[in-house]
């Protein structure tokens, strides 16, 4: 374990963070000690709610108004915690800089990139506006933004998420900081973009030599880039040490659990003799965007002539980055989009463009599970009401008591306490909510379930549980899944066949095993490399 030494630049000493809320004090960080030596990369790892972000926010004096701090944060031996804004502002933005999780909103939408890049340089007194503008262009070039001289005049809304995060990195580097704190800098980005950003950061660190503090929940990243690791759980550091040691011989159970969290195993194959449940041909979805009065509307083809065939008990994994059209495809197959064309046959019935009325009996068998377990449960209904809503439509003959009985069964099936059915969704965690969403589906005994990123909003350890639950349910009920995800590890653990999508088209298609072990297309290779999968 490394000790505080003369090379230590940033030192967090017994930091406590409390939040005053209506329901009383919440202790978010409970006495954390972290130190960062110059030039090293330190990772702080933990699941959401572990206090890892709040620790660094508190250190930088960026807590929300109701936050209270205790302890000390020393920059080169001098305490900055609770010091005046003036004193703090000499350090932050100049000596210690930060990159945030939300690239889309971290830049001011109302000003050009140039203005925002220059501001900290000028305010910290090292540059004039003219020299800062010159440096801004250099910085954009450094972080790999094409045409920096032109892009510097752009507004944030004119850039993609990846580009905005690059701008944030440029901003962080502007004043040659000693420490760069990166708070989940890649979480909100696509897999391939993630890899590029990480590479960029590692490269910049090698060249510029600042220390980097990496806050993340993604262990694959940690293993790749960090020198030392702190593992945090519910506001405390439970384990710390060099990366090799932590990954090689984890001591704490929680660390072991985190390391073990990537979904593993492969799905057992389904015999080809199984009947075909879903057969789709040349599905195409187009969206028209209004461009103005009397002008031809702009047509965006989100899904371009995609065909698929799924047998009973099979899982088709659909992989792609955001905007690849994978979610649209899933909804089009279920006939939820009015502007879809192409032929869809479900269990021998042609349901292409079927009317709402004709689809209604089929809706019982064809279900959809959403990515966001916070948005997909009606906030003003109890869990019981949510789960049994489908029964009102499809089995209206049931009495309230029978419905309740079914709700109990469904909750048990997803390993939830049935006593919870009179509670409301906001009282549950993300993982529990996703279980509720699954229970709502299972109560109708469906045959085909489209799962739209069902694990993406969950922590790794919870993801693993949900994946296992989904696999078990499939085995028990012979379900057929369309599994949509950008997360290759999860897709690999779930699917028989995989379809890789990019910009509305299929890039590659085949058996899961083959695609993962021997990808043919460049894009697939890129995706797999970026995901840094462990052997299954």
């Amino acid at each position, binding site marked *: 374990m490394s000790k505080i030494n003369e090379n230590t630049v940033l030192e967090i000493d017994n930091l406590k963070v409390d939040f005053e809320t209506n329901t009383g004090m919440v202790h978010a960080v409970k006495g954390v000690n972290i130190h960062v030596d110059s030039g090293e990369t330190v990772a702080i790892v933990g699941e959401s709610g572990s206090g890892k972000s709040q620790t660094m926010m508190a250190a*930088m004096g960026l807590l929300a108004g109701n936050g209270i701090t205790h302890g000390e944060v020393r920059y080169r031996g001098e305490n900055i915690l609770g010091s005046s804004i003036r004193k703090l502002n000499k350090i932050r933005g100049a000596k210690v800089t930060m990159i945030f999780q939300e690239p889309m*909103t*971290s830049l*001011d939408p109302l*000003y050009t990139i140039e203005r925002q890049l220059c*501001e*900290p340089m000028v305010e910290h007194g090292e540059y004039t506006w003219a020299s800062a503008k010159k440096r801004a262009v250099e910085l954009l070039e450094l972080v790999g933004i094409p045409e920096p001289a032109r892009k510097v005049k752009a*507004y944030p809304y004119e850039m993609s998420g990846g580009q905005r995060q690059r701008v944030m990195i440029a901003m962080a580097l502007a004043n040659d900081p000693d420490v760069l704190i990166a708070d989940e800098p890649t979480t909100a980005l696509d897999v391939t973009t993630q890899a590029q950003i990480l590479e960029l950061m590692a490269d910049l660190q090698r060249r510029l030599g600042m220390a980097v503090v990496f806050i993340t929940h993604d262990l694959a990243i940690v293993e790749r880039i960090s020198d030392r690791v702190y593992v945090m759980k519910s506001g405390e550091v439970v384990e710390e040490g060099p990366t090799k040691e932590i990954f090689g011989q984890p001591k704490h159970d929680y660390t072991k659990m985190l390391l073990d969290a990537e979904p593993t195993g492969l799905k057992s194959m389904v015999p080809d003799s199984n009947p075909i449940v879903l057969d789709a041909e040349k599905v195409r979805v187009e969206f028209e965007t209004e*461009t*103005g009065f009397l002008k031809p509307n702009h047509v965006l083809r989100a899904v371009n002539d995609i065909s698929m065939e799924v047998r009973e008990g099979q899982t088709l994994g659909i992989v792609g980055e955001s905007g690849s059209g994978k979610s649209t495809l899933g909804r089009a197959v279920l006939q939820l989009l009015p502007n879809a064309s192409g032929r869809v046959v479900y269990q021998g019935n042609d349901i292409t463009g079927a009317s709402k009325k004709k689809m209604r009996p089929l809706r019982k068998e064809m279900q959809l599970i959403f990515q966001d377990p916070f948005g997909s449960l009606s906030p003003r209904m109890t869990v019981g009401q949510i789960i049994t809503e489908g029964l009102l439509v499809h089995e209206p003959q049931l009495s309230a008591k029978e419905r309740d009985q079914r709700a109990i069964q469904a909750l048990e099936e997803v390993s939830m306490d049935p006593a919870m059915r009179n509670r409301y969704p906001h009282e549950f965690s993300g993982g529990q909510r996703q279980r509720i969403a699954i229970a709502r589906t299972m109560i109708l005994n469906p045959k085909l379930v489209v799962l739209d990123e069902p694990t993406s909003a969950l922590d790794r350890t919870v993801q693993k549980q949900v994946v296992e639950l989904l696999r078990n349910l499939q085995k028990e009920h012979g379900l057929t899944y369309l599994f949509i995800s950008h997360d290759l590890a999860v897709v690999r653990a779930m699917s028989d066949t995989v379809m890789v999508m990019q910009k509305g088209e299929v890039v590659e298609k085949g058996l899961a095993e083959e695609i993962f072990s021997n990808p043919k297309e460049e894009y697939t290779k890129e995706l797999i490399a970026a995901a840094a999968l462990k052997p299954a």
Partner: protein
Amino acid sequence: MLRYVLSRLLSAIPTLFLIITISFFLMRVAPGGPFDLERPLEAKVMENLNKIYNLDKSLWEQYLIYLKSVMSGDFGPSFFFRDFSINELFAQSLPISMQLGLSALALALAVGGFLGVVAALRQNKSVDYSVMAAATLGVTIPNFVVAPILTLIMGVHFGWLPVGGWNGGAFVNMVLPVVTLALPQIAVVARLTRGSMIEALRSNHVRTARAYGLSGYTVVVVHALRGAILPVVSYLGPAAAALLTGSVVIETIFGIPGIGRYFVQGALNRDYTLVMGTVVVVACFVIIFNLIVDLLYAMLDPRVRFD
């Protein structure tokens, strides 16, 4: 941008047309006429009057005549103020109302905006609470209560300011009406600014600005306020139109010869042309101010584009 302005003004024409049509017929359906006095006029006189004002023609003809004259910018003769045309009446009163309204608007923006920002920066502290309580008071006390009280104190008791009259827009004559007119607007602007400012201060990009050690002024004014002012700007459109076209109450209490009085007088006396004139003027103001607000909005927010 010029094209945008032109297309907006063009698209206002059908709106104006509809408004004129609706008001014209609504006005005429109302019982009573402009010459229904307590002592009925002689039949001969009545006939003559009806002829002069085209009231002997069919409603449809009258409508077309009115539409034609409005298009040429003529609002016709007043039925009640017999010696004046509506254009003459407006030429006298509109500038006064606009001067009054603009001053009140400026005052409301400056004071309300300042109070809102201060309250947001001191959220849930005593400053915040007192500003918000004062703002609530500002919205809840009707201006015809505020006006006589202010007059009594400043005008009668201390004798600092005149209690009424316009006096060609002299500063001392403007103080009381402008303040009374501005008070509720100050309150609304303060509340709006506070709300959006609190949100802006919590936004991610303001956190970025703070994380990069920018000065308090840059964080608050450059990064938070510019975004926070946007909802206030949207509110200003209708508010400005209402302020500039005069407040009936203020003009009555302070005896100011503005356009506001004509609303009530016109409707009560069935002065058809006067009512129609005021309706058209107000609608024009609403349309123009909505346009100005949209342009202002686009100036403040680069994401808004005209095409």
